[in-house]
């Protein structure tokens, strides 16, 4: 028995060295460092208490990127989930050209976000991009979706939906394949139409998947900022900046590491709340067998 413990700990130790060093310990030191000032030149870092948090509350950019992030989540998640569900239902049915359909839907998932953003830049470029080429034919004026504060975030959202829907489709596809055909058959014999079957049988059975995908999508919406670098750089005037992008700017452009740590604490708190929500929302047996 004692020997088993030692074996187990020896087996775990290499993985835990790295897990602790790059996930758990930094999560804790982030909190600690948010209570100090940033060392600058000859001035060393000193205890700051909650000063950084006061700065944060008074920082209009922080509130801007936080609300952007919430709008970004609200704007991308329900849409991409609805599209993903439609995709999965279509691929699951034996429609003509099913292989092509699946390929078309899933391909964006394989591409790097940086490449995706480059491709979409070509659509958005004012005057020259595909969108303006098309609207120009109808005599409409030039658009500048990514350059306008009120539309920049929408432009970024469209790219995100395009990239993510195919990924979420996979989860639905997997779930659809576990629904026994006899259930659908029974409903059909009872005289239910396709819409009723979807609403009363398929959709409720997919509920755990929808929850799982939603959580994933929310986490992604706080984690995925690669495309911002290419599309807008967070601009104009932070109109399309997200929380993690702002953390990057504060830490690696303004080198204010203490304030960046403070912002990271907020991000960690949001993810922590999500974890708690997930814990209470889920019947965990559904996913973790």
């Amino acid at each position: 028995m004692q020997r088993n413990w030692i074996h187990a700990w020896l087996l775990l130790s290499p993985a835990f060295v790295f897990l602790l060093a790059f996930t758990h310990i930094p999560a804790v030191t982030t909190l600690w460092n948010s209570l100090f000032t940033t060392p600058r030149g000859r001035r060393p870092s000193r205890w700051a208490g909650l000063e950084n948090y006061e700065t944060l509350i008074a920082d209009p950019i922080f509130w801007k990127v936080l609300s952007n992030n919430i709008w970004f989540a609200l704007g991308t998640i329900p849409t991409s989930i609805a599209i993903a569900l439609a995709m999965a239902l279509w691929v699951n049915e034996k429609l003509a050209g099913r292989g092509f359909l699946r390929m078309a839907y899933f391909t964006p998932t394989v591409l790097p976000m940086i490449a995706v953003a480059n491709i979409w830049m070509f659509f958005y470029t004012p005057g020259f991009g595909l969108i303006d080429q098309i609207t120009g034919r109808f005599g409409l004026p030039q658009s500048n979706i990514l350059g306008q504060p009120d539309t920049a975030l929408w432009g970024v959202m469209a790219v995100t939906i395009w990239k993510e829907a195919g990924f979420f489709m996979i989860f639905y596809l997997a779930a659809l394949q576990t629904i026994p055909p006899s259930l659908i058959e029974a409903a059909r014999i009872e005289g239910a139409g396709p819409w009723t079957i979807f609403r009363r049988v398929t959709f409720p059975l997919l509920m755990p998947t929808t929850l799982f995908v939603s959580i994933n999508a929310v986490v992604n919406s706080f984690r995925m900022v690669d495309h911002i670098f290419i599309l807008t750089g967070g601009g104009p005037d932070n109109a399309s900046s997200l929380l993690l992008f702002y953390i990057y700017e504060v830490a690696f452009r303004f080198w204010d590491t203490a304030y960046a740590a403070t912002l990271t604490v907020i991000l960690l708190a949001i993810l922590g709340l999500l974890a708690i929500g997930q814990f209470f929302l889920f019947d965990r047996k559904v996913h973790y067998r």
Partner: protein
Amino acid sequence: MTLSLTRALNLIGAWALALLWILPLAYAVWTAFHPAAYEARFDLFAPLTLENFAKAWEAAPFARYFLNTFVLVTAILIGQFILGTLAAYAFARFEFPGRNILFALVLVQLLVMPDILIVENYRTIRALGLIDTIGAIAIPYIASGFGIFLLRQTFMSVPKELVEAAQIEGMSTLGILLKVYVPLAVPTYLAYGLVSVSHHWNNFLWPLIVTNSVETRPVTVGLSIFASIDSGVEWSVINAATLMTSGPLLIAFLLFQRQFVQSFMRAGIK
């Protein structure tokens, strides 16, 4: 009658969405393989060319970037396989004090990934003197909570009888892992490998932060630098570069489509 109408509508909807979805990529392919003059002019008989690829290849050290990415994803994959296998084996086979707490710590990493702890991890990497090395990009990722979790789930389904039989034959602890558990988990390794390679091939933010030279930059960072030099680089050349950097993954995906989709499914469900 109504049923076949629904079917027709479904077919039209599915194809319309698929065409809409493939359009951006198709457009990138079109511009990359045609001279710059045809960037926005559609002519079925426009001359095909590989010149854009040649220009992109010469304009930036993409060969080096590819090598860096290749070394990076291989190193991460090997690290994840070894560390993940050992840890998953411990969780799946042994009872030991602290097991639940340690497993909870593994699960924490599903939510709090190194991706978001950029400030502190940069500090650590700098303290280790690893800034601007490929190792710096790789080490935060080589212990993956997701990988450990996935492999543990697979290892748990290994029949106890097999393990006991091996024990009676006098196999050592590591022998049982290598001869019994690992062979039974090959499909999981494949699935996880595909997901991991495509994830780290595409990763951008962290490599951007810790690299600053041609010798260490992966293709994603190289591409972003290439595309941001806005003066003089033609769109068709940028699109060629974009396709080039995603090319290996894209071709692998088109060839092994079924395996890819199944891998993502397998990795997603468990």
